[in-house]
Every structure is written in structure tokens, then in C-alpha cells.
């Protein structure tokens, strides 16, 4: 009897893992706020990047501020492949990264090992 219950729990658990990690989820987009001719947006680094996608206006100087709360060195660096940025984020600190907004487009970024992903959209 206990074995049957175990199997049922296991199957439910597997189903939950698949649904939780592989299920399609809507990405929330967050716009940057204007401040003294500069657009700024804060991304919290804690088990990923939230908000995951930020939107910047074209041709306005922009800064994405990464607020690293996560102690894991998995997230200690943020890499923007398109801009050649490989920035170390000190723990419990905010690190501002200037983004070149002269060209519209979607710029993906990731952690140093390419496990966590985020996106900056310039439009």
C-alpha cells in the first residue's frame, strides 16, 4: 500500500517539475522610467533576473541597474554578448550598466555560464 502511495506521489512530483520548469510562461515586460534625461530600470538578481525583460526607448541614454541579492556565484556576472559587456556584480550591491540605445533591437543577456537569461528591448 505504502509503495502505491509512493509511486503516486512520485508521478505527481514529476508532473509538477515538468509543469513548473518547462511550462510556457508569459514574460512580463517592464518599461524604464525617465529621470533627468536618463532612463533607468532596476533588475533584481535573485535566482534569476526580475523583471526578466526590460524595455528601453531608442536614442535615450539608458542604465540597467542590477541589484544582486543572490549569494550564488552562478549569478555573479552578467554578460551582454552584443555589447561585449562582462560585468561582475558584487553581492548585495547595485551595479549600473550603461546600455547603448542607438540601435533598436532585442539584446539578450545571461549569467556567466549562460544558465539564467534576461532581455533588454530597445525600441
Amino acid at each position, binding site marked *: 500500500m505504502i509503495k502505491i502511495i509512493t509511486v503516486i506521489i512520485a508521478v505527481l512530483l514529476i508532473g509538477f517539475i*515538468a509543469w513548473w*520548469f518547462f511550462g510556457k510562461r508569459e514574460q512580463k515586460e517592464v518599461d524604464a522610467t525617465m529621470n533627468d534625461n536618463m532612463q533607468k530600470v532596476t533588475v533584481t538578481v535573485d535566482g534569476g533576473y526580475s523583471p526578466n525583460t526590460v524595455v528601453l526607448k531608442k536614442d535615450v541614454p539608458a542604465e540597467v541597474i542590477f541589484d544582486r541579492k543572490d549569494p550564488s556565484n552562478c549569478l555573479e556576472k552578467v554578460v551582454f554578448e552584443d555589447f561585449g559587456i562582462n560585468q561582475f556584480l558584487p553581492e548585495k550591491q547595485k551595479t549600473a550598466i550603461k546600455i547603448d540605445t542607438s540601435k533598436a533591437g532585442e539584446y539578450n543577456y545571461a549569467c556567466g555560464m549562460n544558465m539564467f537569461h534576461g532581455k533588454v528591448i530597445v525600441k
Partner: protein
Amino acid sequence: MSYTKRFWLSLIMSIPMMIQMIGMLFNWMMPGHNWIAFIATTIIMIFGAFPFWKSGWAAFKNHNANMDTLIAIGTAVAYFYSVFAMFTHRAVFFESAAFITVFVLLGQVLEEKMRNNASSAVEKLLDLQVKDAEVLRNNEFVKVPLEEIKIGDMVRVKPGEKVAVDGEISEGSSTIDESMVTGESMPVTKSMGDKVIGSTINKNGTFVFKVEKIGSETMLSQIVELVKKAQTSHAPIQKLTDKISNIFVPAVLIIAIVTFIVWYVLVGDTFVNALLYATSVIVIACPCALGLATPTAIMVGTARSAKMGVLIKNGEVLEVINDVKTVVFDKTGTITEGIPKVTNVDGDEKEVLTVAASLEAVSEHPLALAITKKAKELAIKTQSVEGFTAIEGKGVRATVAGQEIIVGNNKLIENYQITDEMKKQMNTWQAEAKTVVLVGKAQKIIGLIAIQDAPKKNAFKAMNALKKRDLQPVMLTGDNQLVADAIGQEVGISQVIADVLPQDKADQISSLQAQNKVAFVGDGINDAPALSTADVGIAMGSGTDIAIESGGIVLVQNDLMGVVRAIDMSKKTFNRIKLNLFWALIYNVIGIPVAAGLFSVWGITLSPELAGLAMAFSSISVVGSSLLLNKTKIADD
């Protein structure tokens, strides 16, 4: 708390459990060992493992999973089960939770050190910059901080000092060690009119130079910028790993659950054993090794190349160059020096050159420049000339010391006597694709000068090295077939495509591409279309002006061996990436089944703590393997 502190604390707290483990071999039990293990492990969990739990949970909330997720689950299962077991008087596994933490932290500490090693090389380049320099202000040289130096400033550099920024020497001369920027190990002699590069070291002379580039415009900053971009770039081969790592951790969790069910329900093993197998699976799986395999190799490879004066733009170039079978070279300025030079003199060398140089000193023809340069090298003094006239399409005529002299081509000889030997010599040189200049004095031809845009010193060596690597060198030129063949023969290129108009170079590349992948080597200024058409464009710089925009690979030095080095380094780096990926995959492919107890019938099993050790060293080994790229042998380095 830093990883290092967490590691040491966890290690110290795990000592009693280590003693207990050794004691067990001699059937000795520490009094109150369960309680000691419980307290020690609890401390390890709070300080060593809790940050993993925190990160793992944060990632989980974001629907992400990573290495921390696995370690968190692994340690939490072992720890909380043991707490439960202790109070219900069953066997406990505190040491598993403790040792997994210790080993994983050890791995993290070592890995972090090595990763910093791998990535800091480029930043160090910028540290080469000086903080201040002596700048001319109000007719006096005063020390000025680097940031205040402006374009057009005059900067004085004393022996042993570093050149602050890029510019052109206006006064004085010296030898300069440029190895830190160009990779060229021999110091270069520079005098008025020569360009100097910021951060290079002035050896023996004092000179003044006019500032031409500052800040982010300097060659060093540009190189650093380019290498930084290269280091963050991805190689196409990574797409596979990205796909795997996206599903890796959840997949491992599912495998662990299946492992548990198989052992507990199907095989009928005890709950505890099934749990240990599942824990081992979770702990041994290592997404980090996969994630680190490519970036660390690209980092080390591009940084090492940069030190050799080879700038590789991105990971894609590294990968494509592996399939290149044909290397096409532009002739003028790439295989050859690009400047005509006197190669041979027939007749009395001194007299011939004196006469020729005296006359050509007033001319501005490229061939004239070659002659005056040669005369200068041999310290030949020119004489003053009178009645200088140019004979259209033939040469020049003047009077020196009362005698009529001429310098020109063979159309001039109609009125002059020439010996048969000289005629023969002239024909031989012409067959070698050299331009022959005749020098006449008093109605007699007194000598011949052969001029040629000669191949670079190590062109032959470089072609040979390419052929040894099974690469077919091809020469592309606008020159006529005769000249092109002669140069081709001299440097060892059998496939010569001559009479190509500049605008048709790219088309020639495309037609070669029909057979296999092609790399094109050009000077980056005139050859931009061909450079971008080729699968890999290799732009050759000459000193300060490196055409960074064109080409996937930029050679800082104007040296053909750089092509060989670029190819070597790219291949080595890409092979390292493949090796790393293979190792990271095979480690997981073998490690997970072993941890799951698939081979337990043959007695091969892994306890969770050994799984932790294996996992720690798998990622260290990948980073270490990348760092070994710093030690591999490269042509001429």
C-alpha cells in the same frame, strides 16, 4: 560570507565526523557520535549550505533551476532525513550532508580562483597604461595626468619610460619595446615621422611625439575593447549546450525520482538506500561543467592570441576557421612589402648608385624612391646635378660634373652602348619579374639596377607552415601573370590568380568558396569586400593603424607568421572547447547512471559525498583544461 570562509568553517566542523569515519574502520565509535554529528552538521548547514538553499529557492520561484538547486536538494534531503532518523532511532547520514557541502564549497573556491585567472588577462592590459606624462605646456615640459593629455600635445619620453598615448615622433629617436601591444618580441627602432603606440616602453633614446589618439581611441583601448567583445561572444557549438543546460536540472530531478521509485518500489530495497541513490544522482549531476566548457576556453584562447598580436573577434570565427582549406593572400602589401626595393645592382655598385641617386633625388617616382632609399642605406653621398630633364616614358637626364648621365628604362638605350653581358643580365632579371633601371654615363651604360616589390622576409616560411597544416595558399593580385608567378614561385605559392581588378577580388573569393571554405588575408584597408566575403577575413595591420572593422581576425603586426599563429590558436581553442564539452557530457552521462546504482550488481556504487567530490572536480577540470591553452605550443611563440 565568502565561499572561502564557508569552506574553511565547514571543513573544520566536519573534522569530528572524519575522525569517526576512520574510527569505524577499527570498530571504534565516538561516544555520543550522533549528537556530535548532528550539531556539527547543523552548523555546516547554516553557514555552508544555507546560501545554496536560499539561491536554489530564489531560482525555483523564478521557474529556474541551477547547480544551487541540486546542491540544496541534495544536502537538505540528507540532513533532514538524518534529523528525522536520529529522533526515530534509525541510521543517520549527517556526514553525507556535511561532506557534500565541504566538497562542493572546495570546488567553488578553486573554480572561482581559476575562473578569475582565465578572465583577468585582458583587464591587465589596461593596467599597462601610465598615469602621467611630460607634456609641453608654455614652452616647458611638465608632468600632466593621462586624462589631461589632448590631441596635438607634444609629449617627451625619456629612456625607460612608457609612451603615454598614440602619436607620431617629431623629434629624436629611440628603440621601443612594443611586445605588450603587438606581440613583436624584438624592439623596434623609431625616429622622426614614425608612429608610436601608447603603453609601449621606450628603451634608450629621448624623443618627443605629437599626440594623435587618446582615451578610448588608442590602439591599446581598441584592442582591449575588441578582446572583451570576443570573450563574451558565443561559439555556434554552444547552442547544443544551451539547449541541454536549459532542461538539465529539472531532468536530473526527474531522474532522481525515478531512481528512488525503481530502488524502493521495483527492486524492493530499503527506503534509506533508495533515498541515498536518489541523492547521489542529484549531487553528481554537474551543469556547471557544461556551462563553463565554452566560455572559459574562449576567454583564455582569445586573451592568449591577443598577447601574440592576433585579435580574434568572436567565437564564431574560432569555429569556422577549422573548416578552412584555402588561404587566399592579397599580393601587394600582404605577401610583399608593398614598397618597391632595390634588389640587385650590376656594374660598380657605388658608382651606379651615386649617379642614379643624384639624379633621382629630385624625382618622386616610386622607383626613384627605392633608389634613393638604397643609396641612403649604403651611406652614398649624392652629387649636385644640372640641367635636369625628364624624357617622357623613358627616364631622366642631367649633367653631373660636366658629364651627361641618364637613368631610365630600356627605351633609353637606343643612343647608348651596352655590353652583351649586361643585356643578358637585364633579360634574366626581367624574367624574374623585376623592373630594371639602366644607368648611363657619357654614352655608355655603366650599370643596371633591379627593383622589385620584394616578398616579406618570412613569407616563404609562412606558406610552408600553412602547407604543413594541409592548407592551400593562393595568391590574388592585380599584377600581370609573369610578375605574379615569379613572386609566387619565390614564396612557394603554386596557385596564382593574376590580373584581378580590385573590385573583382570578392568574386574570385566566392568562386573559390564553391570548393571549400576560404580565408582571405589582406591589408584591411583596400580589401574590405574580399575580407567580408571570405568565410574568415584576416586583416593585417601595420603598426598603429589596425583596421579593426574589417575581418574576423585582426593581426596587429604586419607579419605573415601571424596568419599561421591565428590559425593554430583558433584550432587549439576550438579543439579545447570540443574536448571540454565532450568531457562535461561524458562525465554526466557516466556519472549519473553510476550514482543511480545502475552498476551496483558489479559492486560499483557512489555514496552521496563521493558524488559531491566528483561533481566539484568535474567543473574544476573543465576550467583547468581551458587554462592549459595558455601553455599549448603555437608556431613561433
